[in-house]
């Protein structure tokens, strides 16, 4: 019975689906490490509270998104801090800067130029319900200004549950559950809601380690499946080599691409670089990101 309701809801939502998603920048992974792993981060994001080796972390990332097409500059920052063994707060945001556009009227006559911009801010809560069970919730505010007279806000939440079985972390999360992005009274767009099932496990080989992560998701408003897979090999816990793949079942909504990256860890600092490999006419070609972070 429950299953039937879920299927019906998916069909209903799909009736409103558009050929592309609005404000997709909210679905980009938090930092270059996760970007290099194809964006697979569901299990990691939900289970941070279960890792007792650190009190917290903070990362900042600069990303050149679609440098040959849109030419966006994306700045991401987030942080995480344990208030107690079982509680932690997270906070962060991202700012998406576009190149100026040339406003043209219906006859093709140029007008003034306009520079679109978008940002998102969130505040999160992590709780260890048991030694191997974690829950997470984020509250988000999203703002988008894309053209003269077209600017709007939306509010959303991310929810996730993670369970650890002998080092294998399995998580389920729902992202961008919230209001429509309202550009005007007559123009309102759905957020890119996504349901993810993720798993991640680390295999250690002496001072080296191999981390595998896998996400499978569904975007009900676009009737679109998405999958992300990534692997990280850590040498002496200092250098990391990463690779991943991002799969979108509907290429008009979520493109597929491969990603690679490297990382370095020096004491509490960590550096990262990610690069997207895309074929054909994909505008994601040459997308890259740099991150710097700290764990403490």
């Amino acid at each position, binding site marked *: 019975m429950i299953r039937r309701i879920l299927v019906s809801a998916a069909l209903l939502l799909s009736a409103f689906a558009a050929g592309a998603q609005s404000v997709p920048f909210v679905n980009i992974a938090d930092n270059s490490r996760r970007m290099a792993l194809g964006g697979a981060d569901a299990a990691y994001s939900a289970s941070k509270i279960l890792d007792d080796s650190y009190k917290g972390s903070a990362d900042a990332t600069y990303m050149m998104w679609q440098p040959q097409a849109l030419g966006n500059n994306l700045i991401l920052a987030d942080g995480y801090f344990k208030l107690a063994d079982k509680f932690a707060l997270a906070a962060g945001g991202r700012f998406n800067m576009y190149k100026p556009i040339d406003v043209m009227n*219906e006859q093709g006559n140029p007008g003034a130029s306009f520079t679109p911009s978008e940002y998102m801010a969130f505040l999160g809560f992590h709780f260890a319900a048991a030694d191997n069970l974690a829950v997470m919730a984020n509250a988000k505010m999203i703002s988008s200004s894309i053209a003269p007279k077209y600017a709007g806000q939306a509010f959303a939440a991310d929810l996730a549950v993670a369970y650890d079985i002998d080092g294998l972390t399995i998580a389920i999360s729902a992202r961008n559950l919230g209001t429509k992005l309202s550009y005007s009274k007559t123009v309102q767009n759905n957020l890119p809601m996504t349901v993810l099932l993720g798993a991640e496990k680390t295999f250690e080989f002496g001072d080296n380690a191999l981390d595998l992560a896998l996400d499978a998701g569904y975007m009900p408003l676009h009737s679109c499946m998405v999958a992300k897979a990534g692997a990280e090999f850590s040498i002496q816990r200092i250098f990391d080599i990463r690779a991943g793949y991002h799969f979108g079942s509907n290429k008009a909504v979520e493109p597929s691409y491969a990603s690679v990256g490297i990382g370095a860890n020096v004491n509490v600092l960590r550096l990262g670089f990610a690069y997207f490999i895309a074929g054909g006419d994909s505008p994601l070609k040459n997308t890259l990101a740099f991150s710097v972070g700290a764990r403490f």
Partner: protein
Amino acid sequence: MKIRRILVSAAAALLLFGCQKQDVSLMPQKADETIVNQDGEKLKTSSLEQGHIRLQLSEEMTELAETDPDAFIQLFAELGVKSVSRTFPDAGKFEKRTREAGLHRWYDLYFDEEIPLTKAGEELSVIDNLGYVEYRPKMVRIASEDVTWRSGSQANSGNIVQTAQTDIFDDPMLPKQWHYYNNGSTYGTRSGCDINVIPVWKNKSTGSSDVIVSVVDGGIDFNHEDLAANMWHNPDKTGQMIYGYNFVKKNFVVEPESHGTHVAGTVSAVNNNGIGVSGVAGGNMAKNIAGVRLMSCQIFIEGSKESGSGAEAIKWGADHGAVISQNSWGYEDEQRTTVPRSDRDAIDYFNQYAGVDENGNQVGPMKGGVVIFAAGNENRDFGAPAAYEGCIAVASVAANFRRAGYSNFGDWVDLSAPGGDVETGPAVLSTLPGNKYGSYQGTSMACPHVSGVAALIVSAVGGPGFTRDMLINRLLSNTTSLVKYGVRDIPGLVNAYGAVAGASTVPPEQVTTVETSVSSNKVHFKVKIPKDKDDGSPYGISAYYSTESFKTVEGVECQNFQVEDLVAGDFLEGDIVDLQFNKKYYIAFDAYDLSLNHGPISQVIQLTTGPNAKPVIECDVPLEHVVVRTFETKVFNMSYYDPDGHDLTVSFEDNSGGAASFHESGKAGQGRIQIDGKGAPDGHYEFKFKVEDRYGAADSIVVPYVIKPNTPPVKIKDIDNLVFGAQNENLTLNLADYFYDEDGEPLAIKCTVSDNNVVNLAPTTNNTVFVTALMFGTADVTVSVTDAMNETVSSSFKVLVRDSSQPFDIYPNPVTDGNLYIRSGDATSAKVVVSSPSGAVVFNEAVSTDAFSPAVIDLSKCASGVYSVKIIGTSETINTTIVNIHND
């Protein structure tokens, strides 16, 4: 016995008043209440003076008033009487004739103004044998102000040019006094519409101080620079009390008032003193000739509705030497149809006793007086007191010979004079208090012109034996007729020269110098104007003609020619017309004055008239094979003349129904024949043009002509769409490449543009259109050509103005209706890749595009966001971003 009976009646009346005290109590008078006087006339009480009744007492009641004034006053005690006194006070040495005229019986009764006149009348009616009760109408001045010229000001000076006529005096404002000399040079004036006084000044008189004019009006400014020298002085008074009498304040101190000062200036402003204006009878100061004297009988005060007794003032003038009484006043009641009896009695007194001493002997320049009244400004067929037959009523004429719109009219009016009419032209210029000058209009302003002319006549011909009847006869018998100007409801315009010279007795001298020439049946003459001993110059020349010899002019046909502005010694030229053709004639001339005294005739001249030649018609182009298309108008300039100089009559006939017509040019003997093909049915027609003199000699032409049908314009091909690669680019469309009209007529070009900001189309006179790109954009354009018959053909096309440095126009941005357009200046193809913000390719196809058929990219399924667009053309690749707006 009679006195006793009156006393008894009076006592009874007192009792009655006593009994009816309640009825006499203060009762408000209704605004529209009427009262009937003893002549049976209904009068509106609102138009009557309140608290004032004039009584013409019976003989018995007069005796009571004079023998027992206290008892007499007691008769009116219950009326709240304030005073009872004679209307015409004891006149001293003239009291005898005053009583003979019955004026001693008039009394003015003043009582409480709160008592309604109707009630007062009722109370007076019960007084036995009281006499006649006269309710007094409210008095008014009969003029309205136009504009005031301050001394030395150039305001409203008009464009009158000083002429030889007005050079007679050096008064600087004389050229503006059109009412004395009107040469028609000012707007609203017509030459000759004046009182013709200049010839009188030149040849007869400028006025005499022996003549006194009493101005019954507001007080005259006796210190005015242009009046002081002509003011009358009372020999019995001194100081400031010598100029007349103030009938409002009952003393001898005259107070200057605008209306009275203006009127006085017209009568006798000082002439030739280098100051201000001229007066009709103002003398000639430069030659030490004083003008007629102005006596101020003041009945109005500046700025006040209070008035004195006009009747008393008129009589006072007669008793103090005036022979002409000037009255520009009347009554407020516009429905009144009678003249009050006391006014009539005063006028009769003036007429009889002015200029006469207490013994009945003539002592002034005229025996008897003349009372002259303004007819009134209500534009109606009555005016009081002017309508009384004992006075001369004067209507007002505008400067164009027409009755002034406000002027009263009718058979009772005796004369007209210039009073001005600001609705059609200028008003009358005269003096105003304080050495000022200004223009007023009204019959008030017309009236003093007649008074002035009357004074001039008396000055010129008055003296022992000259009577008022002689004066009136001259005034009324020598006017300028207004009938030929279509004015029939008022009499002729006062004519000073006619009236003064109308009594000439000495005929002009003989005509001695004559030159003649003959043309057909017309004799042209040139005559030297002889002298006239008493008139200076004759009024006209008579030309006598006969087919038989004559020595006297009796029974001989003649034609008269006025000399107008010419004077003795000048040559008058004219034509004796309408003689018989080929006939021997005897011709002689004499001169005549205004009294029609003819001088001796000249030597009789013998001559023979010629034949009647046929008129001649000429045209500037040959009138052969005349063809007119329906769009054409052809004009033929015609000239025609009579070799003999006879007037010609033109006739024109056309059988087309109006296509051909004749139009006179305004110049004698010239005109144009016009054939207008517009609207005329095509076909073969003819017109006939004929000129004929009055004696039947004629010439004519008959001209056939053809009107050909119209052929509409046609389109050869459509005008191609136009693309401009930059703003301010331009090109010229030669419409001959697109349209053709077989008739070859000029075509009217009309350009319609949907957006005038994008492109401008300017038709030229050589059948081209100059097209200029103004700003980027598109416009729909229609170019139409229309022939003279309104047949139209048109071609529509589009115009695109774009930046040719950009290979593609990608629009709109943002996309709001789901369609993104890609346009190029020339036809081309390109691959277009559109990617979403997430990097998904949403469009990837090859498209074709050109200036007016852009490629259309469907983004209607795409969410709102910033998209990248990549266009891979044949020679270059474009990367840009656009925004799509979409509602989920």
